[in-house]
Structures are given as structure tokens and as C-alpha cells.
């Protein structure tokens, strides 16, 4: 993985915002646009660092994992010497990437051995996730009809697989319409459903304060 890595850039963007706010408050301003934040950002090392890695992801997307990495390695290697690739490749939104279930192959995963590999539920247990019981569901499905006709019937229910906490289940019983079950109390707040649902039909909102995982040192 390239060293875009976020923590130091997150800290730096926080500090840049702080600088702009302190200046604005000192000038007696409030609630206006902090344009000095944008220019501070463009003049800082975050900008040049992110610019250096800007082609890595699109290259990997286009040429596959291995060769993409090789190419982006070379690309980065060149950029270290100030040689820039002359183009900036385009990104596509993630939720548009899924293909119909009848256009892809199924994937068989091995059963967990309980020693090195585990199932979802024993995993979520170790995240100490807890939400106050009896509260409005914080994973809002805007159109439940669409979830059935598209998420399940066209895309084979990807939420049952991308959710790392086993929150989503399609319960199918003979002679009944499949039911979408949302075990929201297990949600570890990763935000994947909000990103990947093929119809952008799931909206993650904050549950009651204090709910969610309780990571000791993650």
C-alpha cells in the first residue's frame, strides 16, 4: 500500500483548519468561508504528497493488482525524481461497480477453522459492540421494495457479504416474500453499506450516542 496513509494528513488538515480559524476569530469574523484553509492546503506538504500518489489507485484499477502496483511503483519512482505522468486517470463511484448476479461467477470460501480463521459472529463479539436496545434503526433503507427487486433479485444481496459485522440478512422461507433483516445492534460503524449499496438505498445515520464498538486499542 502506498504511503498516503491518512493519519499524518488527517492531523495536518486539522492543523491547517485550526490556523485559518484562529486568524479568522482574531479578525472578529464568524460563520464565513475560510478561504485561507483552502489556500493553506494547496501550499502544504499534504498537497504535494497526495499529488505524488494520485495515479496509483487508477493504475491498479486499470491494470490489475500486480501490474498496477508495478506500474504505480514505477510511476511513483519517476515522480520521486520530479517526472510526472502527463495524465490524471479518472475514478468511478464504487456503488456503480457491481455486476448482475447472472453475469458473474460464484465464489466459494473455505469454512473457518476456529483457530486461525473465524466466522462473523465470533468476530463481532470481539469488537465489544453495543447499542442501547429499543431505539430507531440507524441504518435507514429508503425504499424497501427496491432492496428486494434490485439488491436481492439482481445483485444477490451483496450487503450480506460486504458487511463485516453480519448486520444484513435476507431471510427466505418457502412461500413467503424474502425479508430483509437488519441486526443494527451489531454495527461497527465502518460505513461500507452507505458506500457500496448498489442503489445508494442505505443511509447510515448516527445511533444514540455512546453506541457502537468499544475498541480497547485498535
Amino acid at each position, binding site marked *: 500500500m502506498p504511503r498516503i496513509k491518512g493519519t499524518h494528513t488527517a492531523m495536518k488538515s486539522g492543523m491547517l483548519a485550526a490556523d485559518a480559524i484562529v486568524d479568522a476569530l482574531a479578525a472578529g469574523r464568524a*460563520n464565513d468561508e475560510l478561504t485561507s484553509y483552502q489556500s493553506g492546503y494547496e501550499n502544504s506538504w499534504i498537497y504535494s504528497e497526495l499529488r505524488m500518489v494520485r495515479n496509483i489507485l487508477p493504475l491498479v484499477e486499470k491494470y490489475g493488482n500486480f501490474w498496477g*502496483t508495478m506500474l504505480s511503483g514505477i510511476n511513483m519512482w519517476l515522480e520521486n525524481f520530479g517526472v510526472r505522468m502527463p495524465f490524471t486517470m479518472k*475514478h468511478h463511484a464504487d456503488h456503480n461497480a457491481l455486476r448482475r448476479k447472472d453475469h458473474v461467477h460464484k465464489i466459494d470460501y473455505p469454512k473457518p477453522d476456529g483457530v486461525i480463521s473465524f466466522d462473523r459472529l465470533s468476530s463481532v463479539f470481539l469488537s465489544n459492540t453495543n447499542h442501547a436496545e429499543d431505539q430507531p434503526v440507524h441504518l435507514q433503507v429508503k425504499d424497501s421494495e427496491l432492496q428486494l427487486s434490485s439488491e436481492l433479485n439482481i445483485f444477490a444481496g451483496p450487503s450480506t457479504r460486504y458487511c463485516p459485522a453480519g448486520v444484513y440478512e435476507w431471510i427466505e422461507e418457502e412461500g413467503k416474500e424474502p425479508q430483509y433483516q437488519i441486526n443494527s445492534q451489531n454495527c461497527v460503524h465502518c460505513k461500507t453499506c452507505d458506500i457500496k449499496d448498489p442503489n445508494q438505498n442505505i443511509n447510515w445515520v448516527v445511533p444514540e450516542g455512546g453506541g457502537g464498538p468499544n475498541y480497547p486499542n485498535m
Partner: protein
Amino acid sequence: MSERESMPYDVVIVGAGPAGLSAAIRIKQKSPDTSVVILEKGSEVGAHILSGAVVDPKGLDELIPDWRDQGCPMAEAPVNDNQHWILTKKGKYNLPHFLTPGFMHNKGTYTGSLGNMCRWLAQQAENLGVEIFPGFAAAEILYNDDGSVKGVVTGDMGVAKDGSHKPDYMQGMEIHGKYTLFAEGVRGHLTKQLKPKFALDADCQPQVYGIGIKELWDINPENHTTGRVIHSQGWPLSDANGGGFLYHQANGQVALGFVVWLNYSNPFLSPFEEMQRWKTHPEIRKILEGGKRVSYGARAISDGGFQSVPKLAFPGVH
């Protein structure tokens, strides 16, 4: 409904991650009289923080230059060995260093828990007079009549599933700020509402994301080398891009995780199961065997980088 209570501050910050805490500390360092509050949805600072992490100390150096002497837990494990593996079904080979020069070498970096680093940063912030409210989620954005951001509302407590009020019902509070800083991290729920409103995305590519699933293991001391960090690519992923990491941190622990980019196209793919399968590779299994898994979690990652950084400044907000 009764009027909500409101509390005025100079600066309201949503989220006690590295971004929000750094902003709060920097404001107080420069301007001690400015009042700053941080809202954090986790039960305590760090409870919702999940990362690798190999941290470039650039940010800490700038914020608190003597962090190493101030008990910051990140100082415990400097990175001293950096390996990049390409995995095949049964074997591995090392990616030669010259292909991943300077920039990716993790020189001068540290490995440790970002959650613990945030707990330490929160302590520094509180010492400077920052008020931190853990257990309070910012649920809504408040706007002034002119459309600028006025602050946020914390979520109501004690509402039942059907919307009725339970005996412990407590109405949320309005938190007003001259400036409000949204530091919710990847795919923030309020930030998502701001983007279209202030056309923050207008000039940039759509953000693309990954999911990072992480486990923490206590491993057999014989297999542990503090400061060794390993990144892997290749097996078992064939339907998606991504890779694994395995960081030997302090206290005989390894933080290991697997990132799958969310631009995958096969709906039958399971990032969780890819990670579980990855651990069974002989080279990874060798490290974990005899150890014990102690923690688990997941968080989205943004790999968009430069092309996807939305316009940063908008009225009343960062």
C-alpha cells in the same frame, strides 16, 4: 416540544479522531482563550478509532514536537524492518525495494494503536482546556438564516424504536459555534449532507473507498519482532484489488488487517472471508500459530487521494 437547550462555543468540532483532536490542540496552543468543544459518538475517545497503523510522525512533530518524551504511546515501536510480500497460493516472494522507493519505505515511522494515540491526544487537548464530550453524537447540522453553518444538534437519548419517548428520554442539545469543524473521518454522516449543499464535490472525481478489516493478536514471542511491518499483495484476491498488512507492535502484539477496495464488481465477493482466507496462507499462519486473537473491527478507508479532496472551505465550517 420544548425549546432545545443551547450552548455557545467559539469552535465546535465533530469527531475526536486525529484530525479533530489536532485542530483542537492547535487552536488552544495559538489562542488559549478560544473556547473549543469536541463531540465524539464513541463511549470514550478511541472507542471508535480503528487503524493500522504505521504513522508518519510528520503530523505529531509539527503539533507537539516533544511527543516522544510526553508519554505518547506511538513512540513505543519505531519501524525498523519493512517487507513487501507478493503472495502466491502457497509461497511468497519479496517485492524488490527499488520499485517502491523513498516514499513507501516507512523510514522514520512508528507502528502502534491509533486509538491509544487519540486517547493521549485527548489528554493533551484537555490539559489545554478543550472540552470533550464522549457519548454525544452530532445528529444534525444547524444553519443560520443566511445559509451558513451555525452548529450541530446532539442526538436525542431514550427514543424507542417506534419513535415514542422512553422514561429516560433526554432531548438533544444545540451546540453553536462561530466555526464548526467536521472531522468525522471517512464517509461522515453530516459531511455527506454538506457536500451537495455547498457543491464541495463539484471540481473533483468521485471519492473511492476501501474496507479495512482488522484483528489484533497476542502472538507467540518467538514469532514477534517489534517494529517489523509487512504488506502483502496477491493471493487470495483475484476478484478485487487490495492487500494485507501485519504490523509487529509493542507488548508482543501484531495488528493485522486486510483492505479490499470497494470498486469490486462481483457481488458474491466477501471482504471478510477474503481476510479469513488470507490468514491461512502458510507464511501468515506461521506467524499466528500458537497465538490468540484478542480484538476485531472494521472501518472504511478512503484511497481517493488528491483527485477526490473536495473543496475544503465553506461558510462556517472547515
